[in-house]
């Protein structure tokens, strides 16, 4: 095992081990949540260390940690940060997971040992997905990431959680199994499962196997059947993770695996994927405009945003890809904040439906400011980080065909419509029947969770080049 690159392994193993410790070692219940939060904050700290260590000018694979695992099959434990974008996505993961864990603590989730163990396990698995350099290892982390989600939705979700879980399981299983088949075929052909040594493969079928998993997980229209239910029925912080981080794993998969291993497949299927992404962009925006509740709006807008991100990736030029990576981070943070806010509103009004909400701005300045600020960034007002991302994406995809950019521009107008509808549905106009006068403003604890996320969004608005300049290399 190479000695450098300990930080990558640490970032994967620390939460996994902590999860097992939480499950196995008996400890007083009150300690569980603080311990989990502490571990997730350590993850953020390690990420900052990794960010400092990573040399963006040199690029490539750094902090590489490698050990042979199954020699005969060519499988190895091989993890590291491959190019700038994996640094950013790991950062997004650690930050959103820390915020979600803190939010779970604030909400006092029952059965804490199981709950926080699963959250930590999830953290480790996602970091593994973003750093794995071996396809079989990638697949293992991918599956490991989905299992805690099944349980988190199924056990801690809302009233319709069983249906939501079933749909989620069926969809993701189908995608994952196709990916497993593709992984095996690729590995047998290449003689190794390593993403670094394996070389490219021209087979369209293998590409499609991977694409199936990513397209379902993102999701891309029309593979989003699991999305509305899962996002509505999960606990708020799990929805935040689902749409903030897990969906980015799919986009990451396209970027890391499909682009570097299957350039021929990307070439062959670029147009159909671009078309699906463009349809998804408009379709998601339209349905978000009609959704009756906050989570519905955020869920369908996620569908639209993922369409946009895939547009940027499959523009297959640096402009689009840089914008897409920036947009991944932006959207991850935005949807996390919005889902947590949806949870906060639901906690106060016991519903997220617009017909019973409204008028919450009066006397609740913190809630109004936070929701307004996030919403404004979400609708990509010029000058925001999301605007920078969308601008680069659409400028990139414009070079593949002007029609995609026109569709994107229409979607920008639609985004303004649905976000403003959501903001005024919650905050403005007459006080809704579910809003009580004594419903509190955001509490300091909630602000402590949300404000750092918004702070990062504002930072990215002031300086989007921080990410776009450090994506590939």
């Amino acid at each position, binding site marked *: 095992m190479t000695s450098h690159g300990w930080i990558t392994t640490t970032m994967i193993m620390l939460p996994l081990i902590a999860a097992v410790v939480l499950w196995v070692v008996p400890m007083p219940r009150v300690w569980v949540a603080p311990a989990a939060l502490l571990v997730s904050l350590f993850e953020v700290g390690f990420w900052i260390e990794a960010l400092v260590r990573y040399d963006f000018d040199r690029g490539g694979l750094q902090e590489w940690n490698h050990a042979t695992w199954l020699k005969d099959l060519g499988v190895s434990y091989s993890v590291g940060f491959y190019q700038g974008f994996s640094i950013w996505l790991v950062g997004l993961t650690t930050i959103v997971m820390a915020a979600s864990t803190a939010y779970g603590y604030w909400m006092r989730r029952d059965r804490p040992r199981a709950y926080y163990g699963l959250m930590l396990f999830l953290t480790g698995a996602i970091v593994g997905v973003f750093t794995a350099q071996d396809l079989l290892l990638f697949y293992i982390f991918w599956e490991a990431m989905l299992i805690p989600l099944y349980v988190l939705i199924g056990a801690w979700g809302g009233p319709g959680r069983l249906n939501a879980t*079933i749909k989620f399981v*069926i969809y993701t299983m189908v995608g994952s199994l196709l990916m497993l088949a593709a992984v095996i075929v690729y590995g047998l052909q290449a003689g190794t499962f390593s993403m670094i040594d394996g070389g490219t493969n021209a087979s369209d079928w293998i590409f499609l196997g991977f694409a199936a998993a990513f397209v379902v997980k993102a999701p891309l229209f029309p593979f989003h059947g*699991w999305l509305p239910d899962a996002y509505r029925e999960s606990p708020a912080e799990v929805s935040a993770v689902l749409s903030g981080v897990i969906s980015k794993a799919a986009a990451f998969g396209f970027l890391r695996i499909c682009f570097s291993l299957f350039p021929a497949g990307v070439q062959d299927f670029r147009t159909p994927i671009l078309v699906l992404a463009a349809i998804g962009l408009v379709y998601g925006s339209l*349905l978000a405009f*009609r959704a009756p509740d906050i989570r519905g709006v955020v869920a369908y807008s996620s569908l639209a945003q993922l369409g946009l991100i895939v547009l940027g990736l499959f523009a297959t030029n640096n402009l689009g890809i840089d914008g897409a990576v920036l947009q991944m981070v932006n959207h991850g943070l935005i949807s996390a904040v919005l889902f947590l806010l949806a949870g906060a509103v639901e906690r106060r009004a016991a519903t997220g439906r617009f017909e019973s909400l409204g008028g919450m701005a009066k006397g609740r300045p913190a809630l109004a400011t936070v929701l307004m600020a996030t919403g404004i960034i979400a609708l990509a007002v010029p000058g925001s980080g999301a605007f920078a991302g969308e601008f680069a994406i659409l*400028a990139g995809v414009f070079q593949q065909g002007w029609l995609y950019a026109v569709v994107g*521009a229409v979607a920008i107008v639609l985004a303004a*419509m649905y976000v*403003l509808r959501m903001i005024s549905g919650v905050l403005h106009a007459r006080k809704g029947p579910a809003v009580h006068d004594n419903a509190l403003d955001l509490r300091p604890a909630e602000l402590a969770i949300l404000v750092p996320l918004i702070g990062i969004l504002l930072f990215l608005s002031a*300086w989007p080049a921080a990410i776009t300049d450090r994506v590939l290399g």
Partner: protein
Amino acid sequence: MNAAAWTCLLLPLGSTVLITLLGGSISRRAAGWISTVSCAGAFAAAVVAFVVMLGRSPDDRSELSTAYTWLAAGNFKVGFSILTDPLSMFMMLVVTGVGSLIVAYSLGYMDGDDEERRYFAYMSLFVFSMLLLVQGGNLLFLLIGWGLVGLSSYLLIGFHHERPSAVAAAKKAFIMNAFGDATMALAFFLLIQKTGSLDFDVVFSRADGLSQTVLVLVALGLLGGAVAKSAQLPLQTWLPDAMEGPTPVSALIHAATMVTAGVYLIVRTNPLFELAPHVQELAAGLGTATLLMAGLIALVQTDIKRVIAYSTMSQIGYMFLGAGIGAYANAMFLLMVHAFFKALLFLGAGIVIHALGGEQDIRRMGGLRKLMPKTWLAMLIGGLALAGIPPLSGFFAKDSILAAALAGDTYDRVLFAVGIVGAFLTGLYTFRMLFVVFGGEQSAYVREHPPHAGHDRLVNWSMGLTVAVLAVLATFGGWIQFAGVWTPITDWLEPVAKPLIEATNSQEAVASIISVAVGALGIGVAWWIYSAHRMKAPRPWAVLEHKFYFDELYNGLFYWPAVALARILDWTVEGPIVNGSIVGVAGLTRRTGDWFRALQTGLVRVYAFALAAGLAVLVLVFIAVR
């Protein structure tokens, strides 16, 4: 010069951040002072920069200052930079000068409002956005300022967010502006593809080599943004609704910021428009059509602010006409004096509304001249300036645009004729409003709610003094430039926007005489009908009251189809296909499971028999295959 320009830009932003962060720990009035001082400071910084620039030779007055690289993606790089040149200097002075007066006026107008802090934070943000728009050193930062102006207008129009109509108006303004942003963004994508940059100098220098199709598309995209922001045909419908905001906000939107941005954009990107002359003519045509339409609609409005709002639309139409025929300096001149007298009119109307406890309907007003003589004087100055009566400021600016149109080809002369009709309408609707509000007998409403004088000295000072300053500016502001004799504005803007067209002295004289005559005629007709009551006011036409049915048209064309499409997609695709397919898979699995359930009898002996039978079959098969 750069330091002063940056200070000018960042001071208002700083005050927004400061007020937001301090929140409830400062008094409401302190928030107002922070905002006022920051805007006044921005004006002072602009003056400093102006003096420095004045000291340089005309060729050396343009300076680009980049703070850092804002966005770098692929080969495309764009910096956070500001361009300080005569044009942006001109706009900086207007924006911060008029803007800080309006903010100071708000100190009195908004005094006692529950959410004064939020209001002043938004006002500073608005001034910052507009400054970013005019100072932005490349097209992307122009667009960013552009979008932030739309955002600020959304926030301020919807300031009274408990009123559904205000929220709806704010959303409408934002979405129509977003539409303009989108067309501009598309034009920029095209420019990035063809020239690889969004820097002004690079784009302008490479524009020559682009094909005519590309140039027309780019110019159309820019024009789309301009008409959306400046509320010109066909994207004008948000402006009257925007009157839902507090009155100083209307003044800010109409005078110092926002709606003039379209004119600025055309002047700023004039090298692109000149390469696509048909689009530039289209801009002039749209402006002219708008000035006529807005003038007609203003005749039947009953809300005092809406009358003024339509007059803005009409005046911006004149500016578009000027910019469209290439009389850039004249358009900018009108922009400046319009800022003076329009701010004056709005703030004067604000005093009336404030005094009458929020009443805005002119049919319930009347006879206010005796009760509010100073306000009457201010409004009269504003009205005369708006109607273009010499020697007030509007005359000098508007007539120079009309003269330039007279100097052009046949198309321009048609526009000139329409502009003259517009001048008549301007006199008519302006003085209809003034006579109805101030003239005649006191109305029942006014008798019941007599205007109350404020007791707070600061309130009176902040509102009175600012209006007085604006009245002076509206009176004398036009004397800066007298066509044919004395043209400092044209000379000042020459390095950035060289006029395509210049009127001869005789054309100036003809245009002035005709337009003053018809303007005075309009005032006379207004006096005849609304003051002397020699003629009964004609019944307003339904088509005017419905603002030419644009709202209905757009609802029918865009809003309802979008809603219907979303609904249809929900019913046909999302429900049965996307959602149904997965439910179908689950159901199929369940039914299959039901069939196989019968095998699970729960009797252990049956299982054992199945095992034994299976074994037997295997053995038989084994033997048979051997």
